[in-house]
């Protein structure tokens, strides 16, 4: 262990590594504490259609050796049930003693955190999104750029460019899936049809390397994204962690679970436990940076402040899903070998939302096994199977994230150390969804695309796995809130840099902003550190 540690970072997810870079590059001694569960990458050289048609071992891949994909306690998203991603989500509930009521809580103890299984969608918050933040776009733009350089983002300057942010360099976009390509072409031919109804389509910005060969980590369009990327093309904080480990002034200590911190004089003591033998561990540093994840950081902070049974808000964006079908592609062969997460995105006006819009993502339907669809078809099992087999080649899946304002979700830490989260929606969410639905159905119809019945169901709060705002940044923070600098009110030297710090949560993808904010806070910390040294 390094003798004098300047900063302790808790967590190795996107926020943790983004905060680490400015600190480490400025020469500060950084110790990163992490539970650090590890997984195994899927082998290279496979693609989905080959696996499905030729591999006798495919069941291990899809179902898992111990049938973990059939666990009905896991979230409904196939990504969360992919056996290969088990290590990402495993043990979170037990470790943090999470109990939920009408809320889907997910977290990660893995090295790299939830970024091991994320959708890789990248978007910047604009002035409108940041209007309730104590910071403005000027404060964070440099950080966006610096993070973007590190993670290679692919995309195109199209109609969604303003929405996603247009001030960082882009790699060429990924190959479009057949149906997505058809949809985008139709939109480009007659954009006014959608625009006049308050809808804009465009390509998604991906934290995915699109150029080069397999050796240097370019996307090979294997269609297996949901089961983890074999090539490391999809950004994961693990890549950054590997880079950080090369610095002499950076130490990564895994198998360590942080329980609380105590401020003693000018130093902060971190109480942790070894996950191997439950032995208590303690660490000391001048500054502490919390990046354990929105829910985990909130638990550690509330526990450390002694704020038990104190309710704080959890933000999450309600999500609805639906499927669309390109009639001319019905009964054709399935094309599954593409980047299989959100390929297109859309922005749709939502007058009742604080941000004024909802955000959607459209992904290929061929990369998800048919049984996931059959579950939802309200016809007999054999007919559903035949129908899906016939329709799937024509289908695209879409989801739509709504403003977090439609939910009132709260968490608290009980005296005995359990985390309780309860979720409810505001009563108007049904009518908001109905309105969105009619708008989207009409627009797609005008492009000759059918929206399949059965979609637009209200899902359980938290299904989006976009959590934020548990310890929000405020101009005038109260207890368990943060200053603009990310510093925890009342506890000098403790900073929160993950999703917990976001003041509000707009519908668009928020990971990029979390990373940029972590970078911003850490960069400021470096400035303060140097100034502090100069004074002393």
């Amino acid at each position: 262990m390094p003798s004098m540690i300047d900063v302790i970072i808790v967590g190795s997810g996107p926020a943790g590594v983004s905060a680490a870079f400015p600190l480490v590059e400025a020469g500060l001694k950084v110790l990163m504490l992490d539970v650090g569960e590890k997984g195994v990458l899927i082998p290279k050289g496979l693609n989905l259609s080959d696996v499905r048609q030729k591999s006798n071992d495919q069941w291990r891949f899809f179902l898992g050796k111990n049938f973990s994909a059939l666990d009905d306690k896991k979230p409904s998203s196939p990504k969360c049930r992919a056996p290969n991603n088990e290590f990402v989500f495993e043990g979170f509930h037990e470790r943090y003693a999470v109990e939920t009521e009408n809320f889907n809580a997910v977290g990660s103890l893995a090295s790299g955190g939830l970024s091991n299984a994320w959708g890789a969608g990248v978007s910047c918050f604009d002035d409108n999104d940041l209007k309730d933040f104590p910071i403005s776009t000027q404060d964070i733009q440099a950080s966006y750029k610096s993070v973007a350089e590190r993670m290679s983002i692919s995309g195109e300057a199209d109609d969604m460019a303003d929405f996603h942010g247009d001030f960082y360099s882009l790699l060429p976009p990924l190959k479009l899936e057949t149906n997505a390509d058809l949809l985008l072409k139709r939109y480009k031919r007659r954009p006014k049809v959608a625009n006049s109804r308050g809808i804009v389509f465009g390509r998604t910005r991906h934290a995915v390397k699109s150029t080069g060969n397999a050796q240097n980590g370019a996307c090979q369009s294997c269609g297996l994204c949901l089961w983890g990327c074999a090539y490391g093309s999809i950004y994961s904080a693990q890549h950054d962690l590997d880079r950080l480990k090369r610095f002499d002034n950076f130490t990564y200590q895994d198998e360590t679970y942080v329980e609380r911190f105590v401020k003693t004089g000018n130093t902060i003591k971190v109480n942790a436990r070894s996950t191997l033998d439950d032995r208590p561990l303690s660490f000391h540093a001048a500054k502490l940076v919390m990046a354990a994840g929105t829910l985990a950081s909130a638990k550690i902070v509330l526990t450390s402040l002694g704020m038990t049974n104190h309710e704080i808000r959890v933000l999450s964006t309600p999500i609805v899903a639906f499927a669309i079908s390109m009639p001319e592609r019905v009964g054709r062969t399935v094309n599954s070998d593409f980047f299989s997460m959100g390929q297109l995105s859309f922005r749709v006006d939502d007058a009742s939302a604080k941000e004024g819009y909802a955000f959607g993502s459209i992904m290929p339907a061929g990369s998800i096994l048919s049984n996931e669809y059959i579950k939802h078809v309200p016809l007999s099992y054999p007919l559903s199977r035949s129908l899906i087999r016939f329709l799937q080649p024509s289908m695209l899946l879409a989801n739509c994230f709504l403003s977090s304002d439609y939910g009132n979700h709260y968490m608290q830490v009980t005296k005995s150390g359990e985390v309780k989260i309860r979720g409810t929606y505001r009563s108007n969410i049904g009518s908001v969804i109905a309105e969105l639905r009619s708008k989207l159905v009409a627009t797609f119809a005008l492009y000759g695309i059918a929206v399949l019945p059965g979609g637009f169901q209200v899902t359980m709060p938290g299904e989006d796995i976009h959590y934020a705002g548990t310890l929000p940044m405020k101009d005038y923070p109260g207890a368990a809130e943060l200053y603009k600098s990310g510093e925890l009110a009342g506890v000098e030297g403790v900073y929160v840099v993950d999703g917990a710090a976001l003041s509000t949560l707009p519908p668009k993808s928020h990971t990029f902003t979390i990373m940029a904010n972590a970078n911003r806070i850490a960069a400021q910390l470096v400035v303060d550190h140097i100034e502090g040294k100069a004074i002393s």
Partner: protein
Amino acid sequence: MLDANSTVKKIAVTGANGYVGRHFVDFLLFRGISVVALVRDPKQFQIQGVESHLYSMEVAPHTDWFKEVDAIVHLAAIASNTCVDGQLEYNACRQLLDILPFDKKNNFLFVSSQSAAEFAPTKYGRTKWNIEQMVSSQGGVIVRPGLVYGGHNYGALFALLCSLAKGLPVLPALIPSPRVQPIHIDDLSLALLNILSGFGHRSNIYNIASSTSLRFSDFLKTIAWYRYRRLPFILITPVFLLSFFSRIVNLLPFPKLVDSERIDGLLALKEMDTFDSLALLDVQPRGLVDGLCNKPNSRRALLEEGLALLSYVSGKKVPPFLARRYVGAIAKWKSSRRLRLPFLLLRFPFLIRMVDPRFPILPLDQESRSRLVWCLDAANFVAESTVELSGQYTLFKASSAIRALTDVVFKSLKELPLILISMSVSLIVKCGFISPVVLKNAFDD
């Protein structure tokens, strides 16, 4: 279960070479209890480490055989029904009982019969009743087992029933229908051992059988399917016809085909109340299917169910290894619990359409329905993740497009009337005229 400091260490078993005896001896040996086997022909009884003696009802047993013996389990009986010599059996039992010292009489178990009764229609039943009276007056313990089944079927009624289930082209459904209470041989063995180990308060009579009875013909049908994969036709047979027939046959100089007294005995069986005995002895009889399949958690029945569900959802003949995978999934998430689909649905999987959770013709109750949904979803997942069946779920080849279309059209046309029927049925259920079906075999639990 017997533990190391239990008082029973050595047990003498009469009739140890019979159907129950042989199993019971194995059962005891497996639990580290010594056995003295009293058999008619010691040459036929060769089990290593087991002391055996020639025992015949006509000759008084030798007291030397019973050194260090803690208990006697009396299973020997004269098997043939017609030539029951009541007095001989009575005396033989008395002689055995006298061997145990006065304070150990309650370590004498007389295994009697469900048909034992003072005015039983068969001599067999009356004899058993007489012996029971004597045993209980001397402080011995009486055990009345139901219809014993399971294990290897040497001899005894179970063997006869197995051969009927295996061989008969049609199975008789007797009217009026006799009802039987099955008990698996291992459950009976456990019960016998628990009595001797002093479970609960001692009673002097124990009824050991499943607490619910089932029709005799259902019992035969279950054996036919689970042991021999047969689904014979059921022929409704009035009993008077059968006894008439058997009496005629009995006049002929052939070996007896049907024993009319046995049928009378079967018909006269009174339902036993076994609840208290089972609770006292802490024995929970296994379901009939579990018992017949002879495998832990009735793996075979689960495989059976897996095959049916897989071929229903995938619409194709399913390779058997897939059923094993399905069973693995059920073992992992549903503690190997079966749905208990009825026979016909297992035999003809397309009939599962009747209970399909979407537009069922026979609507299931909430619990059965949600379990079925889980299993069907799992079956789809298991089937789809194979080279053999993934083509049933996804169009990999352009050439199969026309076939896929005809498949959808054909299935939709077939579904239409079913959906209409289903909607009317669900209306009737809503009005409360009929109640939803619960997936549970009466003869399975």
